[in-house]
């Protein structure tokens, strides 16, 4: 009896009691849907259809048609992510002062809920040579020939901006509104104009949040697939890494190779996210309010 109490007390002291059991469903969920498939994929990638353990990886990094997909994907994902974050800051700064914030945020959430395929279908009609966009510009006499915005880099770029921006914006908005407005007022009272207030007060306090936003937006953009196929040139300029994985799995039925590509994809994402988080570690971390509230 005394032993049992001893164990319980010791566990309780480490913050574990009956309530701790409530994490079990979540742990099972993660194990079944994330850890197991990941480990299985990793295992699969080391058992190639032919060659030694690392044959898939060697093949990937020796075939330009495969390894260049990393560059292609980064060339899409990095500019899109940066553009989205940079755009979202001024918009968020303005929106936080609006009263009808809810309505606007609801409108912005719609593209997220629609999903990339629907947005891509919409853009196919809208941006096509006979689409509204080009017809309006031509009717207005701004251009003579339709702009080629589909089945190339820009089609995918635009679709990533449209589907990625709301997500980036909502994250940024929550970080911007988390900053105590009296800090900006204090800055103004001390003679700082808007630009200096942004640089010295808001930006340093936003940096940790913006880094997280960058990381999450990047991961989303890096795994681009539907719009690269539907709006891009999947054989050329927008042959992103997920297309390579898809082709390996469903055109060559080489699950092992597909798994290896997925692992490489994960490694690139992890590398960039870790780099961002390390950079964030250097920035100020702490509350974004100026004292007792």
């Amino acid at each position, binding site marked *: 009896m005394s032993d049992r109490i001893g164990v319980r007390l010791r566990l309780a002291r480490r913050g574990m009691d009956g309530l701790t059991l409530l994490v079990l469903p979540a742990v099972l969920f993660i194990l079944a849907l994330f850890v197991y498939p990941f480990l299985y994929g990793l295992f699969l990638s080391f058992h190639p259809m032919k060659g030694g353990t690392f044959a898939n990886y060697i093949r990937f990094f020796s075939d330009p048609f495969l390894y260049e997909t990393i560059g292609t994907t980064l060339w899409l994902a990095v500019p899109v992510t940066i553009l989205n974050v940079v755009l979202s800051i001024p918009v968020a700064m303005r929106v936080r002062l609006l009263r009808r914030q809810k309505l606007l945020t609801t409108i912005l959430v719609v593209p997220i809920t629609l999903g990339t395929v629907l947005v891509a279908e919409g853009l196919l009609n809208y941006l096509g040579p006979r689409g509204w966009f080009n017809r309006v510009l031509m009717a207005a006499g701004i251009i003579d020939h339709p702009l080629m915005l589909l089945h190339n880099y820009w089609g995918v770029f635009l679709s990533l901006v449209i589907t990625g921006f709301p997500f980036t914006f909502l994250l940024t908005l929550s970080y911007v509104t988390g900053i105590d407005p009296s800090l900006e*007022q204090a800055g103004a*009272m001390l003679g700082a104009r808007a630009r200096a207030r942004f640089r010295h007060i808001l930006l340093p306090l936003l940096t940790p949040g913006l880094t997280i936003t960058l990381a999450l937006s990047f991961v989303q953009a890096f795994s681009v697939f539907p719009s690269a196929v539907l709006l891009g040139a999947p054989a050329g300029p927008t042959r992103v890494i997920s297309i390579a994985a898809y082709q390996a799995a469903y055109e060559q039925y080489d699950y092992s190779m597909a798994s290896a590509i997925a692992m490489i994809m994960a490694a690139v994402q992890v590398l960039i996210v870790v780099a961002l988080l390390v950079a964030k570690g250097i920035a100020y971390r702490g509350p974004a309010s100026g*004292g007792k509230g």
Partner: protein
Amino acid sequence: MTIASRDFRELRLEEISRDFGVLIALSKISLTVQRGEFIALLGPSGCGKSTALNCLAGLLPLTGGAIWLDEKRIDTLGPEGRGFGMVFQNYALFPHMSVRRNIGFGLQMQKRPRAEIAKRVEEALALVRLTGQGDKLPGQISGGQQQRVAIARAIVVEPPLVLMDEPLSNLDAKLRLEMRSEIRRIHGLLGCSTIYVTHDQDEALSLADRIVVLRDGQVRQIGAPETLYMRPASADVAEFMGYRNIIAAQASGNAAGLSVALAGGSLLGTAVDGAAGPVTVAIRPEDLTPSPDGPIAAEVITAEYRGRDFYGVARADDGTELYFRAFERVGPGARLRLAAPAERVLIYRADARR
């Protein structure tokens, strides 16, 4: 000490107004503040005192009137153009900057040489008695110290006017008293003008040279602390200044000697603006004390010990509840006779807006 307020003669508010749509937060406030004066804006919450301060600071634009600093009209400038210091209720220290950088921020914005900034920040630290704390972040120091940093940050730019928005409301009682005398000391050293917003009449009385009582966005009275304490201009100002007994009564006699019938007794009083007829009577609890032949008979409901004396509530025979002070312990149910000196029974017109 080289930190000193910039020279100016006076700050004039000319009928400044501010409304938020249909809500009128400030209505035609006029006030002239001399250099070196300490003004307290006093009023209950929602009276417009914080709005007034924000309008002065430039954080809220006016919807009417003008603000002048000597011959310069300043209400058209933004907060960054006015050069006033402000101490916020929550201090609003920049959490990512050290105490030193917080204090030096205003000088940095003025693009002063680095050596000068360092020197003046040290002086400001010494002035608020925080020497040696300069490298800490605001989150690493106590509330009282944060308060001192906020004051140092506001005064290091040598503003002609320092605005304080209930700066002591987040501190505990002991620290509040301590910071109160600190604020007065620093104000005296700098020679600046201070406008101090508070709802605490004790703070206003002890700090200010002049008190402006606001209610519903209007100035109800401007006066020295003694005047407001002893002779409020109207019954509602009296109520706010601690005259807890505000009683409707009938007055008889003439202005030389007015007596009021209240709570089943008859008291001699002093007319402020009341005359014979229906009046409002204001008496501070400390002036209403037990006396063997007092005119008002009452029964004690509660009494609490306050150290030197007792403060209590008693019910008069006609049901009126009276706040009184006693010098000896009185228990609930005890019967008393209460009296107040005639000069401390203030009589106001009954129709005064209440």
